[in-house]
């Protein structure tokens, strides 16, 4: 499982990688997940439906991330734009 973060001037950055089935990796991923949310990020998982359509799911907790998810993408939380 890879954690990617969108950043200005970079595109996406790999911020963590690990196998959630291994305890040590899982702890690291959980910590990184929390850290990103505390930094004001939203987390999304690209998914594919049974019909083959690509969709996305927003997750607020690492427990919501499917174990077989390949990528979790973090991006800055939405804010209202020009008033």
């Amino acid at each position, binding site marked *: 499982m890879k954690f*990617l973060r*969108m*950043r*200005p*001037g*970079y*595109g*996406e950055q790999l911020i963590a990688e690990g196998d959630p089935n291994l305890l040590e990796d899982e702890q690291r991923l959980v910590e990184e997940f929390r850290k990103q949310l505390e*930094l*004001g990020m*939203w987390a*999304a998982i*690209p998914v594919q439906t049974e019909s083959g*359509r*690509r*969709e*996305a*799911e*927003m997750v607020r907790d690492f427990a919501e991330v499917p174990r077989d998810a390949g990528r979790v*993408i973090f*991006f*800055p*939380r*939405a*804010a*209202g*734009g*020009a*008033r």
Partner: protein
Amino acid sequence: MTVALIATAIVIVALLFEVTIPWFDRRAEARRVRKAAIEAGHIAAYDPGRERRAENRARELLKSCVNEEEWEMYRDLGLIRVWGGESLDSELRGVPYAYLIYPHKPIVAYLPQTGRLLNEYCVEFPDESKPYGSTRLPDSDDVLAKWMALKGDERRLISSANMHLPGRQVDQKLLQRDIWRLGRWERERLERSGRTQSGAA
């Protein structure tokens, strides 16, 4: 005659000098800033291709996440249409609606059946860590963030946005033109797909 020509040349040179002074000033200032950034260890500030490389990476990420049709739509038209899945407006009474996603512009809701524009949702994804002094994501990352947020939690995204009547930031004529372009693009894509299938059969 010669004296007149020399005098004219001098005047022209003097005028050109006057005109080009601001340009030289800007160049000198940019050089000073770059030199200061390098001395301060901010090597990144000296990388002119950074934004382009970031955008290229962002495009690859977008392509790997959205559907093929959506990717081609973005590549060809510079926008992505996402169908709405919520009943955000009771006035719609179940009529299908969709959003147009543009990079760094408001999300626009409209009725595909009639082309009627509904609302503009002004939303940004500012990265306050400002890695290069800017909070702005690359264009394709901005589009992907909107796409994922709409697909994953439409209500949350829309409630985070500032809602305005259409035309506030995006020109209505441009929107109507894009809706027309999108319709034509879909018809052509369908025809191409039909030809390919009949050719294969």
